[in-house]
């Protein structure tokens, strides 16, 4: 394992990043100067995400907290050497995932893309929802199309809980990708970097994950209406 991780910037660099970089340069300078307020605000800003991401690799909140602490040690130790070629945030989270992986043991270290082989081509939408060869002009078109969810359903706390449970039940690679992308709101670049995935593999995992979460929601929201 690389330690401390390099801060090599990934391929895509949007223009909106420029402003972010200025802000980060200021943050870095303050951290290096030992500004406690800045450090604390950074810790607080990222704590929720850091704990959740750590929980992808370790079993309990207590261990996740230790991992977060370890990660900050790594961040502070690497601070002088950090060159700002990746964003501060993605560098912090790369350190975090490295810490979490080494704490999580062998299983956590196995790369999530091994999960691609985990599930040989199971259909993501029940094939009986589509018309078959008995209707030659419409084969492959919806026979039982999805029904719109109501605003009340979408706003209900319970519905978000269904989504959360569905995510927890996913195979590991899918769960990790959807957690970073849709729960944490990370970009695909940040996600690929943190999980060591190629763009294409990440997309496959995301595709399966979202399709399954949708299917669970559909099933449970339908059951609820009865």
């Amino acid at each position, binding site marked *: 394992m690389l330690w401390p991780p390099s801060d090599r910037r990934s391929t895509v660099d949007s223009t909106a990043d420029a402003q972010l970089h200025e802000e980060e340069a200021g943050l870095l300078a303050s951290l290096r100067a030992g500004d406690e307020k800045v450090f604390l605000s950074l810790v607080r800003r990222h704590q*929720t995400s850091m704990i959740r991401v750590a929980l992808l690799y370790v079993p309990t909140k207590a261990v*996740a907290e230790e991992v977060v*602490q370890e990660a900050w040690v790594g961040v502070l130790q690497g601070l002088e050497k950090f060159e700002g070629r990746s964003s501060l945030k993605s560098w912090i989270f790369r350190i975090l995932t490295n810490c979490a992986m080494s704490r999580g043991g062998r299983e956590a270290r196995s790369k999530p893309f091994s999960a691609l082989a985990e599930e040989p081509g199971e259909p993501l939408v029940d094939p009986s929802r589509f018309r078959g060869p008995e209707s030659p002009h419409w084969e492959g078109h919806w026979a039982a199309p999805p029904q*719109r969810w109501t605003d009340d359903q979408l706003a209900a706390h319970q519905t978000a809980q269904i*989504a959360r449970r569905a995510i927890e039940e996913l195979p590991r690679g899918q769960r990790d990708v959807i957690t970073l992308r849709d*729960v944490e709101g990370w970009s695909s670049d940040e996600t690929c970097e943190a999980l060591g995935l190629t763009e294409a593999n990440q997309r496959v995992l995301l595709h399966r994950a979202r399709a399954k979460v949708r299917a669970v929601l559909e099933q449970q929201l339908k059951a609820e209406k009865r």
Partner: protein
Amino acid sequence: MTRTAPIELTCVELVALVTEYLEEALTPAERERFEHHLVYCVGCIEYLQQIRDAMKLAGAAKPAEVLTQEAEDKLLSMFRGLKK
């Protein structure tokens, strides 16, 4: 007779491409076929909408984890120690 319109997608095909569409990973031609299908297919419009709903719900499903005061204090004293 020559064919002018591109071959239309089936719903099964659209469902398989939905993430590549949202990730803007389709070629311009593929994207056009995808969007063309959405012009007339209510089922697929709804499928795409539900994928978007599911993404939003995932974002709403965050458990708000916070560090204990103890952990935060430890970090702060470590930060102080490093700057000596």
